[in-house]
């Protein structure tokens, strides 16, 4: 795990080029505190900051193929590197290190750009073909590791985080209104767009090749694919599929345990993380080191379930207790890492947790991330199923009541007011014919925050049609998929890649130089799950049915049967104590600062602040708007307003 940065193009290297690379790398020190390196040659500059996990002794980067013909800097892990290495050695390739990095350069020599299809891992790769003066950027299938790029001054610049690009390209330090509107709708900018003008995010599963003449080709080498609805089954029986899934998950965990440092795990108390820890034990690790977050408030806290699993699995467990004040204090650091607005504070406790992991001497953790996307765990999937069922008979007096079975964990759910639930859930029913029907209500809630934009931005935001935008991004085949498959695709490409794996994943772990690993996102698991009949994933209104069956023998029945509890944290209320906002909130949301930034409507923000101050922001709409505005103002303050004073190296919060 690491940070990478660099550029391709331009004439012979100058001393200023080296300083530029050093400045870029300095902003990524939190991603790789253990070592750093630079390679500078005609046409190319590569910089790397290293978090040593595999082959600490000889795995330094930038690394070349032994002849200097192919160079790479790489962030992430190639979990099947031992198998690839053996295969390449049989074909005559000589290895100089024990690292996973070295298989990349030889695989490229052997297979060209298709090398990426052979990798099982989570990675962002920059590869330089010196003979052809050609740059290749590649990103893993699910979008676990970030990779940004920008064209400027006749070069293509790239880096693991935007802040490294800004260190070299101050001209990119302007907020892109489209990225802002996307973030306020989908919870994160939609790649290739980012919050910054001219900065692009390489989409998951894509490879970008830049030739010597500057021409570039973007290729999608992998995507979530599903069979046509009603296609003949490819499994003999559910039982057989369950056994196959269990074996596959065990193999994914076995591969992801590969490291030359100890590997821990997150244990939230739910099915997914409990399953991962149980699989780690199956893989032969008797005593697993586990970590979790606890909260004051019963609404968010899951310590009982966590302790039940700790007892059952006999793990050595550490909890981090997270208060509202902790969230407010750490929030500015969070958004310096996310480089995108967040609508929820939920990433903060995970950033504090990774700090604890690091202090406990661990730099790698396995987590249950991805199971809800791969096996259809979210309420959104169930809600869509009921709403589709209801839409077939809109006059039905009872069909919508099935929605009462969802959202039981929400204290202020519309389900609590049955008389209104029908009218509320009927909103968006008119979109029944659209492929993104399931997501329409969520995006409608998020978009309430757009009402707080300044008038000219608001006009632009209102012209943005999120349904049409996401529908354009669907592959042509999606029209023939089952509705659940389409819902899963949209979820994986919008919320998961754009928010969960980024602001709530890579960024909050790397903030403390910790690498998260996600066995449920092993592409073999995803491909397997995508072939399953939808009813094996969402059975009636029971989510992740086949995953429960697969993990049942390894878990206490209460956990295997437990309904999903979404991970959440206190939002707007975190920023107030006895009705007083945190100092930076009062400052950033003051009318002069709001007007100065030009992004929001100062009067509206003042009314929202007053409402939150009185503790009256109960709904997701108000809370998301408030957190979104605070985070955007912090981003503006950090990356735009104070840019000259900024560009400092972000210190890893847990390692200093």
């Amino acid at each position, binding site marked *: 795990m690491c940070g990478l940065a660099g550029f391709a193009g331009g004439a012979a290297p100058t001393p200023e080029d080296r300083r530029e690379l050093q400045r870029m790398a300095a902003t990524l020190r939190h991603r790789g505190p253990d070592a750093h390196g630079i390679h500078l040659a005609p046409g190319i500059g590569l910089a790397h900051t290293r978090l040593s996990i595999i082959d600490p002794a000889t795995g330094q980067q930038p690394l070349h193929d032994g002849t200097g013909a192919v160079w790479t800097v790489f962030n992430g892990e190639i979990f099947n590197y031992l198998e690839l290495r053996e295969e390449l050695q049989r074909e005559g390739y000589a290895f100089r290190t024990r690292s996973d990095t070295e298989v990349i350069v030889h695989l490229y020599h052997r297979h060209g750009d298709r090398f990426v299809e052979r990798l099982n891992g989570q990675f962002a790769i920059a590869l330089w073909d010196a003979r052809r003066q050609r740059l290749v950027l590649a990103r893993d299938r699910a979008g676990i590791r970030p990779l940004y790029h920008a064209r400027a001054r006749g070069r293509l610049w790239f880096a693991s985080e935007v802040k490294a690009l800004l260190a070299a390209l101050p001209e990119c330090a302007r907020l892109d209104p489209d990225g802002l509107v996307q973030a306020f709708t989908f919870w994160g900018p939609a790649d290739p767009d980012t919050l910054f003008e001219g900065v692009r995010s390489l989409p998951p599963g894509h490879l970008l090749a830049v030739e010597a003449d500057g021409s570039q080709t973007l290729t999608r080498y992998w995507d979530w694919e599903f069979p046509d609805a009603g296609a003949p089954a490819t499994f003999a029986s559910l039982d057989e599929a369950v056994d196959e899934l269990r074996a596959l998950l065990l193999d994914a965990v076995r591969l992801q345990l590969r490291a030359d440092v100890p590997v821990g795990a997150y244990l939230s108390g739910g099915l997914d993380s409990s399953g991962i820890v149980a699989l780690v034990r199956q893989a032969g690790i008797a005593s697993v080191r586990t970590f979790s977050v606890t909260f004051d408030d019963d609404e968010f806290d899951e310590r009982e379930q966590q302790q039940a699993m700790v007892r059952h699995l006999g793990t050595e467990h550490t909890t981090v207790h997270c208060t509202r004040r902790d969230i407010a204090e750490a929030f500015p650091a969070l958004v310096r890492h996310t480089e995108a607005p967040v609508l929820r504070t939920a990433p903060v406790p995970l950033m504090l947790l990774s700090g604890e992991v690091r202090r406990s001497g661990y730099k790698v953790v396995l987590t249950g991330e991805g199971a809800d996307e791969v096996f259809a765990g979210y309420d959104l999937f169930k809600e869509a199923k009921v709403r589709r069922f209801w839409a077939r008979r809109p006059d039905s007096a009872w069909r919508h009541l099935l929605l009462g079975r969802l959202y039981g964990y929400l204290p*202020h*759910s*519309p389900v*609590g*007011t049955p*008389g*209104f639930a029908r*009218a*509320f859930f009927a*909103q968006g029913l008119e979109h029944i014919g659209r492929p993104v029907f399931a997501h329409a209500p969520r995006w*409608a*809630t998020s978009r*309430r925050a757009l*009402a*707080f934009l300044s008038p000219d931005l608001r006009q632009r935001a209102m012209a943005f049609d999120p349904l049409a935008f996401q529908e354009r991004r669907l592959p042509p085949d999606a029209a023939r998929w089952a509705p659940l498959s389409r819902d899963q695709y949209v979820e994986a490409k919008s919320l998961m890649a754009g928010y969960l794996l980024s602001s709530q994943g890579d960024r909050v772990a790397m903030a403390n130089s910790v690498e998260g690993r996600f066995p449920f996102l092993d592409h073999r698991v995803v491909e397997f799950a995508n072939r399953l009949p939808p009813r094996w994933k969402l059975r009636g209104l029971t989510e992740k049915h086949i995953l429960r069956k697969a993990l049942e023998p390894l878990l206490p029945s209460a956990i295997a049967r437990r309904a999903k509890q979404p991970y959440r944290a206190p939002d707007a209320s975190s920023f107030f104590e006895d009705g007083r906002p945190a100092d930076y909130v009062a400052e950033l949301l003051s009318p002069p600062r709001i007007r100065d930034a030009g992004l929001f409507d100062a*009067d*509206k923000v003042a*009314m*929202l602040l007053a*409402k939150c101050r009185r503790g*009256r922001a*109960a*709904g*997701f*709409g*108000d809370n998301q708007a408030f957190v979104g505005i605070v985070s955007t103002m912090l981003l503006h303050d950090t990356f735009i307003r104070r840019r000259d004073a900024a560009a400092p190296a972000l210190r890893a919060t847990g390692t200093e």
Partner: protein
Amino acid sequence: MTETAIRETIRGHILENLMFTDDPSRLPDDASLLEMGVIDSTGVLELVLLMEENFAMKVQDAAIIPENFDSVDRMVSFVLRSKSA
């Protein structure tokens, strides 16, 4: 409390706390709050709270229906009916 005072209290609350605006023309008294997107999933509870806090009334669960809450006009009649009951 007069009908006018009730109406102004309800309008003021919705404008300030749900619509975040001081422009009264944005809120026609007969407009559906659901259709206008003024109330989200928990907005109904905010309206109930508004009633209970400002008009010293207790709203029964069974009364929380769009017929009583989905516009300024409906809320005003609901308060008046409750008061006279």
